């Protein structure tokens, strides 16, 4: 028991400290948090898309459709599980599992804070890219096992797309990894080095390198870091099969692409995996280029007063959300039909406010703020995903391929070489 509590005083991740009980706890927390995030994303995506198209979106189930994701989940669980007659049963059964397991395995190395990761590996980023590339296998298996034309075409497209964009993604990642070894302070790395000059693939060490060099890698060697980040930001949309690169599930041509034949719970696994993978690749982008768990301006606005000010942000965010919810509660129609909705929304608002109050307690505040800054950066990417979907028309397949091979990969190689040159000079 004392070992169990002693871990809280160490500054290692539970995997490195060998605290196996804490590893299990961390995994459960991450699994629960990602599931909640997927539910929230489901609601937000429909709401935001609707508002972008001047619609209301879901409004009926719960106040402002807040309970819609739960209703959908219930529907999916109760739906009949259909396996097509000539499908390859075993592969059909395995495919959703492969997709979900690979999507969630990547979370092992994501650093939500200096100690808030399940473990820190020497090959962190390599592990993430490798496991993420296994997700392609699940999609191919799903498409082939369905024994139907639309899924097969969808999965062929998807595998071609993912294999070609992985190359560009790798180039961008390598140039960020290269930056970890080029020590020195500031945008151009001039001045005494902060840390050791040995490069690293470990996710935590990559963020530490940004801390030591006093610069987020998106601004390092301007505009090279920005270019690498841009390549990654485009490639990650293609990797997760999202609009405008959602050809594997282009509704107008392929009905629903690789998961056409899936229904009920199996389909919801694909849905869960897609959103989990989106959060995972966004976390890679945040870790590599946006300073991971670091708050904005940790050095420029350093010092005790600023630290305290910035550590109030999590609580303030929750107070803002609570205020928004309570304002909506007050503004709801006065008729008695809305009584239950009104009470529910009011309780939800008070709950958010209560969480905000808990976050004000100093020990909680200190432990939570790394996670908060990481989550808020990832949330920015999630909003971008929805924004893309509401804004860009879908690419044609040949346009997608020529963008990937003729623009992204050459630019990626050029950025990599330029980064190496600037670093050596």
């Amino acid at each position, binding site marked *: 028991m004392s070992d169990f509590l002693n871990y809280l005083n160490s500054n*290692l991740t539970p995997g*490195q400290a060998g605290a196996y009980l804490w590893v299990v706890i961390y995994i459960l927390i991450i699994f629960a948090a990602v599931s909640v995030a997927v539910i929230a994303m489901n609601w937000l995506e429909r709401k935001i898309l609707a508002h972008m198209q001047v619609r209301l979106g879901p409004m009926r189930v719960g106040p402002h459709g807040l309970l819609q994701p739960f209703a959908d989940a219930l529907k999916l669980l109760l739906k009949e599980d259909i396996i097509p007659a000539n499908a*390859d049963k*075993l*592969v059909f059964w*395995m495919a959703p599992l492969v997709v979900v397991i690979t999507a969630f395995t990547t979370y092992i190395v994501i650093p939500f804070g200096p100690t808030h990761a399940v473990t820190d*590996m*020497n*090959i962190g980023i*390599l*592990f993430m*890219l*490798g*496991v993420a*590339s*296994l997700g*392609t*296998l699940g999609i*191919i*298996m799903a*498409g*082939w096992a369905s024994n139907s034309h639309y899924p*097969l075409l969808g*999965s*062929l497209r998807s*595998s*071609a797309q*993912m*294999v070609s964009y*992985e190359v560009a993604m790798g180039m961008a990642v390598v140039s960020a990894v290269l930056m970890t070894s080029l020590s020195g302070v500031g945008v151009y790395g001039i001045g005494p080095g902060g840390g050791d000059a*040995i*490069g*690293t*693939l*470990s996710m935590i060490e990559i963020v530490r390198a940004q801390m030591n060099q006093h610069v987020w890698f998106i601004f390092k060697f301007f505009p090279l870091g920005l270019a690498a980040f841009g390549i990654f930001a485009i490639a990650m949309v293609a990797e997760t099969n999202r609009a405008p690169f959602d050809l594997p599930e282009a509704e107008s041509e392929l009905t629903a692409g690789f998961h056409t034949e899936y229904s009920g719970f199996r389909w919801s696994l694909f849905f869960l995996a897609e959103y989990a993978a989106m959060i995972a690749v966004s976390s890679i982008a945040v870790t590599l280029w946006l300073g991971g768990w670091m708050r904005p301006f940790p050095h420029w606005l350093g010092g005790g007063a600023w630290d305290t000010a910035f550590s109030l942000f999590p609580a303030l965010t929750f107070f803002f959300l609570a205020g928004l919810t309570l304002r909506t509660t007050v503004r709801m129609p006065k008729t008695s039909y809305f009584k239950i909705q009104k009470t529910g929304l009011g309780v939800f608002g008070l709950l958010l406010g209560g969480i905000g109050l808990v976050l004000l307690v100093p020990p909680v505040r200190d432990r939570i703020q790394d996670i908060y800054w990481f989550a808020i950066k990832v949330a920015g990417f999630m909003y971008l995903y929805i924004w893309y979907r509401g804004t860009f028309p879908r690419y044609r397949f040949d346009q997608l391929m020529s963008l990937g091979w003729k623009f992204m990969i050459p630019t990626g190689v050029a950025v990599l070489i330029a980064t190496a040159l600037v670093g050596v000079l």
Partner: protein
Amino acid sequence: MPLQELTPVATPYFFYGLSAVAVLSAIGVIMRRNPVHSAISLIFTLLSLAGLYLMLYAPFVAGVQIILYVGGIVVLFLFVIMLINIERMQREYQFNKQWLVGLLAAAVLGVLFVAVYVKGQAIFPQHAVRFPEQLNTQQVGKMLYVDYLLPFEIASLLLLVAIVGAVVMAKKRI
């Protein structure tokens, strides 16, 4: 952070478990009539080999194994296999009767394995050199780009020639 040697837990169980998966799925690769099932078995073999590399203190090799072999090569295998008409292939008569050669090769390999098992103590050092887990990738990089730079570059040139050759052969009009 202090450099620490990673101490694995329950080593024999993991070794035998991973080896069993590797061997069984390797048998699956050659026994299944359906090529897609063979390819999926191959994935399991490669993944358990990656696990064995991890146990040998080579996380970088394990990561590369997963990215290149499982994420790249097997995906391309499946990509090609999916376009073949499997139903016709399964009904087709297999006429490559080379079991005699196969048996001979297997026997020679078996003898080799037994010989290594018997004499292995003398041939191989008892314990491999261990690097701290945190520096494995850095050590590989140093070996490739400092100690063995010329062989590495020659190998990459060979690969480049192969790629150009493949493009030339695949494309009718360049």
